[in-house]
């Protein structure tokens, strides 16, 4: 039977790993992810979760152990944040290159120095090119649903790439919200046990991740790109099937589109800023502004066609980045601009760097950004391509 809980985002991630019947969990504590490590330890020691738990001595080892477990044929889960994720970097490449469907919760937190444990998407966005699928969540329900969906997607023989489920530290990890956990039997039928196409098997011995020359390397990398393309097709289908089966709201597949049909200005964002943007859109619509919101849910694979389709009809796009790629602009802005370039009639695009290092981004802030973009569209020119919103000088 489906049950509704009110718990923290970290608790949700732990319950999702349990509901997904992850067989091995290898994890290392780091604020604000630590609660996930503790919740899973509790679930396992109380016998509610039947998994092998490896209390590794570092995040580099957490990912290495996850790779070993996944290669042996077990469904594997881990979680990390910020510096822990950065420390894993080498092994992120290994997990994807070895085509292992590891699922990892990433609780987004600012990178130091200076030390700062508050939300910022810079940690996971700087892992963009590691070959992992990346989802960004905006609610507790979405964290739960996306972890379950992630296993369905990444264990598909056409995908076989690892997945990060990213959500902001404290804003989601440490606040409580209601969410529904579907009936376990129904979940089991949605997500059957993992049947790897190959594994470390003494009856069928193979060399895994051996040396490969330039004769093969390029083709192996192309297959990863193809897998991302396959995932791009699969993600909306799995999200829809999940929503229909469990009578839960669909998260929009690759992106969550809100009030975009007649919009003249679109706010593009990720994570919880995307939820706040919906409130801002409602407020602006009440005062007669035709504004819509696009919350990018899958950053990798990036929803190029969907962004193009939605933005082709609008005058201005305001992209909010809770991160910065130093020497350029916000990472989401780069991707959106790249998608828009093919359009014959491109909207004006502006980037707002906001909320980094945990600074609050309110509905009023988002309204102001949207209005600024609308004003530029009306004037037909942008005064400033990238704005550090609320910056003190």
């Amino acid at each position, binding site marked *: 039977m489906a049950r509704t809980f009110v718990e923290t985002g970290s608790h949700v991630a732990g319950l999702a790993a349990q509901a997904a019947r992850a*067989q*091995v969990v*290898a994890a290392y504590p780091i604020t604000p992810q630590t609660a996930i490590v503790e919740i899973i330890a509790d679930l396992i020691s109380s016998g509610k979760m039947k*998994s*092998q738990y*490896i*209390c*590794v*001595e*570092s995040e*580099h*080892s*957490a990912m*290495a*152990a*996850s*790779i*070993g*477990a*996944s*290669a*042996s*044929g*077990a469904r*594997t889960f881990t979680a990390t944040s910020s510096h822990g994720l950065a420390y894993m970097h*080498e*092994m992120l490449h*290994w997990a994807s290159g070895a085509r292992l469907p590891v699922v990892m919760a990433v609780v987004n937190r600012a990178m130091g120095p200076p030390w700062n444990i508050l939300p910022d998407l810079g940690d996971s966005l700087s892992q963009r090119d590691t070959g992992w699928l990346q989802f960004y969540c905006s609610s507790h329900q979405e964290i739960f649903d996306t972890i379950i969906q992630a296993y369905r997607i990444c264990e598909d023989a056409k995908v076989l790439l690892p997945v990060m489920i990213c959500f902001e530290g404290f804003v989601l990890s440490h606040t409580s919200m209601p969410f529904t956990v579907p009936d376990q039997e129904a979940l089991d039928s949605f997500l059957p046990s993992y049947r790897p196409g190959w594994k*470390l*098997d*003494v009856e*069928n*011995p*193979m*060399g*895994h*991740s*051996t*040396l*490969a*020359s330039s004769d*093969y390397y390029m083709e192996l990398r192309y297959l990863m790109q193809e897998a991302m393309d396959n995932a791009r097709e699969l993600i909306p289908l799995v999200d829809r099937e999940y929503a229909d089966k469990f009578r839960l709201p669909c998260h929009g597949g690759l992106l969550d589109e809100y009030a975009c049909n007649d919009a003249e200005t679109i706010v593009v964002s990720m994570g919880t800023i995307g939820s706040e943007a919906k409130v801002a859109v409602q407020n602006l619509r009440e005062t007669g502004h035709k504004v819509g919101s696009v919350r990018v849910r899958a950053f990798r694979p990036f929803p190029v066609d969907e962004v193009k389709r939605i933005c082709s009809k609008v005058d201005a796009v305001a992209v909010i980045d809770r991160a910065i790629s130093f020497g350029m602009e916000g990472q989401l802005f780069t991707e959106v601009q790249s998608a828009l370039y093919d359009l014959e009639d491109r909207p004006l695009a502006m980037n707002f760097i906001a909320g980094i290092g945990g600074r609050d981004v309110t509905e009023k802030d988002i309204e102001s950004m949207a209005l600024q973009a609308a004003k530029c569209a009306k004037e037909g020119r942008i005064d400033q391509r990238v704005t550090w919103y609320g910056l003190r000088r």
Partner: protein
Amino acid sequence: MVTLKELTKEELILPGNASCAGCVTNLSVKLALKALGSRTILVVPACCTSVIQGVFPHTSLKIPVLNIAFATTGAAASGVVAGLKAQGIDGITVVGWAGDGGTVDIGIQALSGAAERGTDFIYVCYDNEAYGNTGMQRSGSTPLGAWTTTTPQGKTEPKKNMPFIMAAHKIPYIATLSPSFPTDFIEKFQKAKRIRGPRYLHILIPCPPGWRTDPAMSVELGRLAIQTGSWALFEIENGVFSISTPSRPFLEKTRRKPVKDYLEKQGRFRHLTSQEMAQIQLNVDETWEYYNKVNQAKICP
């Protein structure tokens, strides 16, 4: 005692692989797998054995091998052990098989973690006393005085004592090995296979290109290492130290050959002065005084 005739004829490493001429890592893999059998999974980080396996789509090993990044042998093996257990698969020996750089330097954290967690696996360090795969750079396991490409004047620090570091982890079984003494070598692998929990085996590997030696002399050099006391074969089983049979005579100082006999055969020690050789001899003699003490007292080093 095992005799070589009793061993399985089945070869789990195939000939024609990519090892160098006179490579006793190749010999060690062969002997180890004869002792462990085909129900073995190898976890191999960046090291000579990543090359010896061959280039895709070929492999010289007839058992499943997980190749993995340099620092991670202990952790990746922990994952394999947990994964098999989670699936209810038993009767498989999981073996981490790493070089000295991958063990005493970059891999020591993951190994220490796996040992401390009581991981049920065998960890093998095959030690050619430098980063051989990248062309002989110094590692923490390079001995005092040895030339490498990053110690062109000879290393000024002694070799890290990894077996004793593992002894400090209070794991059930630690042994040192040499493929020049194949029966001792095989018996130690067989014993390690029977024991549960973390087991650590450390093999000395004479390396012709790195040590600047004649490829035909690798086995002989391994013997000389033992006969001069430069390498000692011992076990630490449940905290009890015991010198192994091939090394036992050399507890007596007079039975040991001069260390010079071993050093002089290697180009990497060619630059040593007679004073430096005398210092190395002194260090070896001191080490053996210590071995005598722990061997008599049957205690953990």
